[in-house]
């Protein structure tokens, strides 16, 4: 995609995406509410949505920022517990839910900030191990905080129970859309390019006057925020939270989604989150082999294609349309080329794939 010539003008490009996404939402929602899609599949689809948000948010830190945080499940746990507690206090009122979600995201982001500032001073392996330690500490705190506080907050090992089940398909996928849109626009902005430059070469970008600490922390905090949102959706989807659900294994599962899809490709993250959530459901008989295959895939992909299957490639519907139009018109167009990256744009649109 070197000579990107944009034939479809900018507002129209967004319009096409938004319209398609809304159509997708309405059609799917209708199918689920009417019971055409059975409850089981509806549940799996919601779960896919949660995993998409998790993968896309981790992709900011891993793919765009080039760091390797191993405590993503910790941020998810914070978001999940925060919004679950709020929802329980509000006894399941649907109007509170969006606020509970955002509160979960904000608290997770706050922790992202607290952990990010010291962690991001460190390089690669140290950062990985530090975030891993952080994730474990979160889990230990969730387990034992009640003994310290003297009253029941997280309910220890038994976990928070009877959380109002407020998550449904529509909310989940609206959040998926918002997440992808925000991250996409952020990555296309000046800030996004600064973040990418850190991945490419931190020292060089620093010497170009980019405040690397600021941008690293920014990326980290945004990543934590959306992990918190995903946690809130997860809590509302499942109704019970126990600390053991947010262990190191969970962080790795999210990482596998990102790595497999391609570090730096939002489309890749969305695709692999979808497949890695749906496929085990379809192949329940081979459950014993699932984790073995996951880890093998991780190693093989790293050895043969370290950037992940999609690399940094991102699918863009408009890009495709552009190409098609160009093909029909031949080579007569003489438009002023506006070389611009199109990273991440496709993610929102990817879901139309299901409609076809």
């Amino acid at each position, binding site marked *: 995609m070197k000579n990107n010539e944009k034939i479809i003008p900018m507002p129209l490009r967004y319009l096409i995406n938004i319209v398609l996404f809304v159509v997708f939402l309405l059609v799917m929602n209708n199918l689920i509410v009417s019971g055409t899609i059975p409850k089981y599949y509806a549940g799996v689809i919601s779960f896919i949505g949660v995993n998409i948000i998790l993968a896309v948010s981790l992709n900011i830190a*891993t793919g765009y920022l*080039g760091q*390797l945080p*191993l405590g993503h499940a910790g941020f998810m746990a914070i978001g999940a517990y925060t919004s679950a507690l709020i929802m329980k206090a509000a006894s399941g009122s649907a109007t509170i839910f969006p606020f509970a979600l955002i509160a979960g995201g904000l608290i997770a982001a706050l922790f992202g900030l607290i952990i990010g500032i*010291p*962690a991001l*001073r*460190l*390089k*690669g*392996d*140290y950062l*990985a*191990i*530090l975030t*891993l*330690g*952080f994730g*474990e*500490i979160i889990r*230990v*705190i969730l*387990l*034992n905080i009640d*003994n310290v506080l003297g009253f029941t907050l997280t309910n220890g090992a038994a976990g928070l129970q009877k959380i109002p089940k407020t998550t449904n398909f529509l909310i989940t996928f609206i959040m998926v859309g918002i997440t992808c849109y925000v991250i996409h626009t952020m990555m296309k902005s000046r800030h996004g390019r600064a973040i990418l430059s850190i991945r490419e070469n931190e*020292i060089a970008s620093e010497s170009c006057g980019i405040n690397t600490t600021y941008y690293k922390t920014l990326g980290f905090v945004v990543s934590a925020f959306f992990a918190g949102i995903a946690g809130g959706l997860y809590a509302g989807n499942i109704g019970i939270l126990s600390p053991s659900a947010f262990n*190191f294994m969970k962080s*790795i599962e999210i*990482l596998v989604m990102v*790595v497999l899809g391609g*570090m730096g490709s939002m489309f890749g993250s969305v695709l692999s989150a979808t497949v890695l959530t749906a496929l085990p459901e379809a192949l329940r008989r081979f459950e*014993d*082999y699932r*984790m*073995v295959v*996951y*880890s*093998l895939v*991780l*190693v093989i992909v*790293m*050895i043969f294609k*370290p950037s992940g299957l999609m690399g940094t490639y991102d699918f863009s519907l408009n890009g495709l349309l552009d190409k098609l139009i160009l093909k029909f018109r031949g080579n007569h167009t003489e438009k002023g080329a506006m070389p611009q990256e199109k990273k991440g744009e496709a993610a929102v649109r990817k879901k139309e794939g299901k409609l076809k």
Partner: protein
Amino acid sequence: MSLVISQLINGLQSGSIYALVALGYSMVYGIIMLLNFAHGDIIMVGAYVAWLAMVHLALSPILAIILAIIACTLLGVIIEKVAYTPLRSSPRLSLLITAIGISFLLENLAQLIFKADAKRVPPLITGPSINIAGQYVDFTAIITIVVSVISMILLTFLVRKTKMGKAMRAVSEDMVTAQLMGINLNSTISFTFAVGSALAGIGSILYCCTYPQASPTMGSMLGLKAFVAAVLGGIGSLPGAMIGGFCIGLAEAFVSAVGLSVWKDGVVFAILIIVLIFKPTGILGKVINEKV
């Protein structure tokens, strides 16, 4: 008073296992700058080999010990050849993810083959309790501490005084220049992995003496804590790894002794975070400047 001594010995005993594992981490990190996540899982494999040898092949404990150490050594070298060598020139991130992948692969393969419930490893080393200053100390505790101290001394000798040790130090200093000086890079790195994994093998034997169970996930937490020990002591430094290991063991024993045992893991990782923030080079580590 005797209570304090008992707790000290408890701490030293678990600390010396951490120390042995941390030595392996430190060596590998020192030479190829890789956090070898799979190191803890090599211990798990060693424990299963010892179990297989004693329960299914009915071998004597001595043979089982030797077999376990050989298996760990081989496994370490194979992992290095298959997974890490192809990635030597790749970004650090890829190498780290591969290491995590290998670690998970070993764990899940073990779970697939041996099932999730723990296997009981028969006693490998037995002996009478020893009376030290009016305090009975378990034989395995003494063995564990002594073996790990001897291992560290031998290892220091190996690195400081032998030709291979010189090659290892050269490679860790500057890989390219070391090659120009006629050092065989591949064999040196493989040797490092072999030594590190053999230490893990010894660690797995000592582990099984004290905690006679083999389970698929036994290596992961042990490995992580040993890594914390390596970082605390100063990664790349052999005496540092030893000191770090003992510190972590004692810290755990202390936390448990004052009745806060549920926060043990939290404290270990909190130590890690504090060390990384205030003294990232650890107790005995050197500052390494990143080259542009």
